[in-house]
């Protein structure tokens, strides 16, 4: 008599996937938040700093942009374990994903600063605004509007790329799907559901960005 090791997909599995989707959202938003702050600072340094600063930052960020994220995750996770400081999967995943996001956002931010015409900045300085006031009240809002769609593009790709964090054992949406597939063998249905969850996470972001852009363009 054959023992059936597989079991049907059950309603509570949907809840399991839903929770995993929330973890995908959590790690993505954390990485987007941290990565965007650092990316903005790097981008500002690259556009305003001297050529040596720009070169060094760019070279470092190029490493993170060009090495596949999955390799970065495994390398970092193994490295800290070998070094004797193992971190929870969420923490090491967040660190790697944040650095990766920062590397992508840095280029976007640099484009934003450079999209503000020099003459506009001269005009604001001529009114007596300090360098930092010019940065805060002119460069930031004008530059942000110029590169906002690109930044949203980075954010959406980070949501999808966060699936790779599954390789170091963080149970986010993709990992949860794999667990269920192993149990039910119902690949098609489960991946379809997972895909819908990814869509449900991304769609509000792109809708919100459209709304914000429309308000700016009034």
């Amino acid at each position: 008599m054959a023992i059936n090791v597989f079991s049907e997909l059950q309603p509570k599995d949907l809840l399991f996937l839903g929770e995993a989707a929330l973890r995908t959202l959590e790690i993505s938003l954390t990485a987007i938040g941290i990565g965007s702050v650092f990316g903005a600072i790097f981008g500002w340094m690259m556009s305003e700093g001297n050529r040596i600063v720009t070169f060094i930052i760019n070279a470092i960020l190029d490493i993170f942009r060009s090495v596949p994220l999955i390799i970065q995750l495994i390398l970092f996770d193994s490295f800290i374990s070998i070094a004797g400081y193992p971190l929870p999967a969420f923490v090491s995943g967040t660190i790697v994903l944040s650095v990766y996001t920062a590397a992508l956002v840095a280029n976007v931010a640099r484009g934003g600063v450079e999209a503000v015409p020099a003459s506009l900045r001269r005009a604001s300085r001529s009114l007596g605004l300090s360098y930092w006031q010019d940065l805060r009240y002119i460069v930031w809002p004008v530059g942000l509007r110029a590169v906002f769609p690109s930044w949203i593009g980075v954010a959406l790709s980070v949501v999808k790329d966060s699936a790779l964090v599954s390789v170091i054992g963080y149970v986010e949406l993709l990992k949860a799907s794999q667990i269920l597939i192993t149990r039910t063998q119902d690949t098609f249905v489960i991946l379809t559901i997972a895909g819908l969850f990814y869509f449900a996470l991304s769609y509000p972001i792109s809708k919100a960005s459209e709304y914000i852009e429309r308000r700016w363009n009034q």
Partner: protein
Amino acid sequence: MIEIKDLKKSFGELQVLKGIDLTVNNGEVLSVIGSSGSGKSTLLYCINALEPIDSGSILVDSISVHDKATDVNKLRQKIGMVFQQFNMFPHLTAQENVALAPRKVKKMSKKDAMDLAARQLEHVGLGEKVDSYPSALSGGQQQRVAIARALAMEPSYMLFDEATSALDPELVGEVEDTMRMLAKEGMTMILVTHEINFARDVSDRIAFFHQGRMEEINSPDQLINHPASEHTAKFLSNVR
């Protein structure tokens, strides 16, 4: 009073100002004419500390502009500047454009700054455009907002860097009228311009710049009708 002594300025190898001596008295309107590359716009940027200088000095109300101890952000409040590009802040309405510097630099309350901005826009004839964004304004209107924005800091001096040369011909008049009005009100102004007729009407003196030197400075009538330098005569015959 603006006192410029032996001002020299280079961009890399190219010396664009080769020793300028010039005094602009309070209440005076001085126009600076000359062909492109003669250094006249650079002169304005130097007066406003937007460009560093190589040597010489610029005193504005006896404050040395390029002295390291000088607070340029404070000094610039004395000196309004209007550029060739309209340079309105694209994300702000006309009123917000004008109110920004009074709020952030002079620390005025939002209400006071917005009231001041509305008055300044009224002054340049744009009282109905307070809520318009730059994209909804013509070039001439944008340039008048830029003038109102500079005036809102209550400067003692106004510098105009080819303020009408990026405008469509039919819009030049309204901006010139605004500048004329300021001249009548006694504002001390330096105008870098290509509009010789306008310069003649509005100026107390006209200076002609040629290849980084001030070739000639005189009353409009003398300089235009009886130029002392052959370079001046040649330039004037070319622009007419």
